[in-house]
């Protein structure tokens, strides 16, 4: 055994390590844009609206850099990457698994009943499937006309284009890109939707903010398989030892929404929504913080977020994220929009 062979063995080991680590670390490959026949934005949107939604299974990756304050109980909202597993059986049947390191939240819809199961406290919440919003209004209209109309409305404030092709979750996709007109005062730079070229199913949504190279939000499939799914995925039987609850009626949640005076200032990308801040004792669950809203100190908790600001419109606190700004004024108004702070203060001063 000469020294040479030891060196060789060492180099071999280093090579194995480098290759192995490289295989593990390497991202799933940025591949070349697949060649696809050109398509106009109108055709693309109308084909998305008419497409048959077949059954599929996949993994959705949420890559979040919105800079939201951490909300307990909803780890998916905090900055970072999380993965959600999704199965769809078509006909309003589906299953979503939101894993956490030591538990899982499972949502199952069998077409008539929606179940939400939380493994941490072993509770299953049941709700009838019907009252979760009506069917999309676009379905009643002629999809082509609806798509043309939608794009015409968008074109008043944005540039709509099909920006080439790409590959998402191993599928060839068209990239539909919405860019705000230069006159729009918004924090957003671009919104991209990747649409599967074959099935015309949207596969990925990317939101890019001004002055940021990395997307502020990217939600999309990292893996998708079309095809029939095991029907047992879309049924749910509460396991023994589970607390089964019926979800509270939804109209209780919606009524305060309607009562509250709400106005919008501006249109397009720099729309500002002005509303009333939820008052303590509203009984409306906020931000998943159970019990927070029962306390009279609920309001100070909300105002503890953000930075204090003041101006001719009054004073309050501003919460800034990568894609949106919210001002909560001391007199209980809320102004929010995908706009810089100045646009909000102008809207409040109006």
């Amino acid at each position, binding site marked *: *055994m000469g020294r040479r062979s*030891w060196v060789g063995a060492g180099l071999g080991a280093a090579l194995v390590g480098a290759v*192995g*680590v490289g295989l593990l670390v390497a991202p799933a490959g940025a591949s070349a844009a697949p060649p696809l026949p050109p398509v106009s934005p109108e055709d693309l949107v109308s084909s998305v609206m008419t497409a048959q939604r077949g059954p599929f299974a996949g993994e959705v990756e949420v890559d979040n850099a919105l800079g939201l304050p951490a909300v307990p109980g909803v780890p998916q909202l905090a900055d970072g990457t999380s993965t959600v597993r999704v199965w769809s059986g078509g006909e309003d049947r589906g299953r979503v698994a939101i894993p956490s390191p030591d538990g899982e939240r499972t949502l199952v819809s069998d077409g008539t009943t929606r179940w939400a199961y939380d493994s*941490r406290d072993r509770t299953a919440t049941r709700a009838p499937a019907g009252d979760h919003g009506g069917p999309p209004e676009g379905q009643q209209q002629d999809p082509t006309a609806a798509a043309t109309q939608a794009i015409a409305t968008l074109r008043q404030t944005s540039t709509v284009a099909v920006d080439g092709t790409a590959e998402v979750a191993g599928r060839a996709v068209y990239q539909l890109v919405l860019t705000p007109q230069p006159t729009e005062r918004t924090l957003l730079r671009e919104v991209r939707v990747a649409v599967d070229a074959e099935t015309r199913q949207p596969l990925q949504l990317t939101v890019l903010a001004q002055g940021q190279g990395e997307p502020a939000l990217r939600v999309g499939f990292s893996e998708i398989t079309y095809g029939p799914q095991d029907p047992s995925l879309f049924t*749910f039987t509460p*396991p023994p*030892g589970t607390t089964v609850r019926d979800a509270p009626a939804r109209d209780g949640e919606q009524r305060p929404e309607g009562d509250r005076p709400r106005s919008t200032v501006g249109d397009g990308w720099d729309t500002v929504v002005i509303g009333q801040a939820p008052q303590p004792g509203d009984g409306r669950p906020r931000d998943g913080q159970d019990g927070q809203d029962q306390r009279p100190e609920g309001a100070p908790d909300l105002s503890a977020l953000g930075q204090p600001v003041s101006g001719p419109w009054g004073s309050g606190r501003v919460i800034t994220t990568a894609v949106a700004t919210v001002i909560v004024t001391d007199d209980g108004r809320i102004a929010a929009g995908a706009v810089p702070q100045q646009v909000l203060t102008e809207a409040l001063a109006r």
Partner: protein
Amino acid sequence: MTTVSASAPPASRASTRSVAPLGRLAAAEIRWVLRRPRTLVLLGLLALVPIALGVGIALTGGPGDGDGPGLVAAVAGNGLVLPIAALGLALSLLLPLTVATAAADALAGEAAHGTLRGLLLAPVGRVRLVVMKAAGVLTVAVLAVLVVAVVGVLTGLVVVGGPSGTMITLSGTTLGLGEALGRVALVAGWTIVQLLAIAAVALAVSAFTEHPLVVLAAVLGGLIVFGVLAAVPSLEWLQPLLLTSGWTAGADALRDPLPLDGLASSTGRALVYVVLGAAVTVWQMRRRDG
């Protein structure tokens, strides 16, 4: 005279026995390892992990709603989760300690006693020596995991009990006994591979030193350092390199349908550690002379 007659064809015997069969070497090493009191004591202590966990949960009804360490909370009234939770708990420190002890004794311990010199001088190739020593460590790793898994299944079924021999997954589905045992076996196999990664690194350290304590300190210190590195947000890019960052995948076995991504990638990562550790061990043992 009898010796002469017994060894009638000395030349042929010398040629056939010039290389001792590897199986016999490994068997001798395994017998030697399993006769060590510290190995037996460690295995016995590992058997206490699922028992303590199961008895504690059966007596107290498990941690309160949602505030326990996740998987342990899932054990209450769901006995077949116990082996998986116990393996997860033991994998964080106790199982690595067990294999590190075996690996420390295998080379550094022999060197400390001065017996490694005899092995190095014996007509056994250095690679065969490493394979024989690795067989001993492998046996300890497999036995340790099996002890926790088997005692966990028994304790889970007898002490904690469950809904008629079934397992409730984190996804809220119910698995039959056969599939539940399959899931336990999957986690046990996965844990063995993770332990082999630690054992390979521990053997490599063991090949460089003659102080067994150095091996223990290196392995346990390394695990703690990995835990610290994984907790630093700005070092997130390091995560795919850290062995410990894949260890949350053990809980994936309790999801339904079973996601294999995490288990597969952490197994791949562990195999890289195994190859690197084994290569360094062989390389160092070929040049070691005392």
